[in-house]
């Protein structure tokens, strides 16, 4: 029984990371109707920035953290201008291919610049964790869960109680009408990309001490974020979060009870299963029909 709680705790921990990445992904999709296959690279780049600042340059952790997030804001803006903006009027296929190209470009540029060795990032907090009974609560996981809760609360407040949040929502619901009211749509989309890059980056920095920081972490995380959004219902914000948590739990239990090497495969199987049998996810709207 304790094993179950242990796995549950870890599952929710890693699931929170997936939830953060899925959240960023869904926000971009709602604002621009683009499925961003390069979403995972936000996490990967941020983790590498942390390594550069805090390990290579040996700057204090918190400063590195803030600089990395700042770097992600800039990266998100550049991504918007370079990848989305030139293709915003084209059909879905060129855009998908372009974001896939961006994903390959970014991950391999990092490889070229930094080298293939996976890097190690120290956890933020010094103490390793504590026990409740025989269940061991790792400090990094607690931090992840804690920060995710804070961020989701912040985001909820921001979208529901600020005017800017309402303008962002309006833009993602009807771009043309938003511009007719004077809402600066291009700025709204830019903000969405910047925010999405930053929370993706946060997820990467949080998960880095647990996994290694490697070139490939982006691709794997991205696909898990997709799986999470499909489970929760594509395009649904709450669904992305719940889907992420669910996936983390499924994966952790799967690794423990079924097989470790195929751990990553669970996400894909779940993705395929949902896409084939229930494409609208648990909460989502009808997915494919348009007359």
């Amino acid at each position, binding site marked *: 029984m304790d094993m179950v709680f242990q796995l549950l705790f870890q599952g929710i921990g890693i699931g929170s990371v997936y939830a953060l990445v899925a959240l960023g992904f869904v926000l971009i999709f709602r604002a621009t109707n683009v499925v961003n296959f390069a979403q995972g690279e936000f996490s990967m780049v941020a983790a590498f920035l942390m390594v550069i600042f805090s390990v290579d340059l040996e700057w204090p952790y918190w400063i590195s953290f803030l600089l990395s997030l700042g770097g992600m804001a800039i990266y998100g803006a550049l991504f918007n201008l370079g990848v989305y903006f030139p293709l915003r009027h084209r059909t879905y296929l060129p855009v998908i291919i372009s974001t896939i190209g961006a994903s390959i470009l970014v991950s391999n540029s990092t490889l070229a610049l930094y080298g293939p060795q996976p890097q190690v990032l120290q956890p933020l907090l010094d103490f390793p964790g504590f026990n409740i009974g025989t269940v061991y609560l790792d400090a990094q996981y607690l931090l992840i869960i804690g920060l995710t809760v804070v961020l989701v609360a912040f985001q909820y407040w921001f979208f529901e109680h600020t005017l800017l949040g309402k303008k962002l929502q309006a833009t993602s619901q009807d771009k043309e009408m938003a511009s007719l009211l004077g*809402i600066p749509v291009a700025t709204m989309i830019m903000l969405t990309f910047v925010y999405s890059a930053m929370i993706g980056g946060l997820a990467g920095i949080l998960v880095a001490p647990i996994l290694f920081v490697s070139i490939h972490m982006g691709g794997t995380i991205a696909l898990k974020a997709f799986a999470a959004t499909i489970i929760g219902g594509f395009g649904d914000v709450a669904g992305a979060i719940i889907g992420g948590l669910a996936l983390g739990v499924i994966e952790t239990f799967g690794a423990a009870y079924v097989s470790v090497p195929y751990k990553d495969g669970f996400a894909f199987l779940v993705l395929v299963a949902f896409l084939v049998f229930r494409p609208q996810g648990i909460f989502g709207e009808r997915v494919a029909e348009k007359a």
Partner: protein
Amino acid sequence: MPLIELKDVSVRYGEIEALRGVSLSVEAGEVVTLLGGNGAGKSTTLRAISGLTKPASGEILYEGKSLTGLGPEEIVRMGIAHVPEGRRVFPGLTAHENIMLGASNRSGISKEQIDQEADAMFDLFSDIRPFQHVLGWTLSGGQQQMVAVARGLMAKPKLLLLDEPSLGLAPVIVSKVFDIIKEIRRRGTTVLLVEQNARMGLSVADRGYVLETGRLVVTGKPDELWNNEDVRAAYLGGHARAAAKA
């Protein structure tokens, strides 16, 4: 000087000529109605004014200034609000939030002030006050229309472009909407109204224009237009001309 003037404006959607050399004007304080059957180019006229569609040729002058090349965000800031066809209330936001966003073209005002102004809107649109915290997609057609018009007024426009406000609404609701249009006009806003329902459209107007396949065919005061055979023909086809003569 007219508040807004179109000079020989043509608009194309790909190969199709939606507007061919249309010239019209609206003086400050007027209510002018654009009539015509489907596909006549009425909505296109409004879209050209608000910047959603760029004219292929011709000029649009607002208070004497040319609007050529300006986008919708700039044009609404200059004081032209467009309430488009189909209402287009943001489905995931409440009525109150929708209306608050109508003030997005104005700078330098606080959220509290916008909130107060939105509240005041519900005095004019009293029928929707009980629904102010209801999400857009669950509102009925008539309620959405009122929200859309209130939202347009929040921009404090000098010129309000209203596209087919009666579309899909039951007659009772339609008359309420048109009462509001009369009140808007009484408060001093200039209105350019597009309507397929010729009778209602002319009931609130000072003047009217009739479009047919992208061209202006006749203009005049409401009574003149209502009794004009060409107007009936524009809606019901050539034989209606014959029947009217009979």
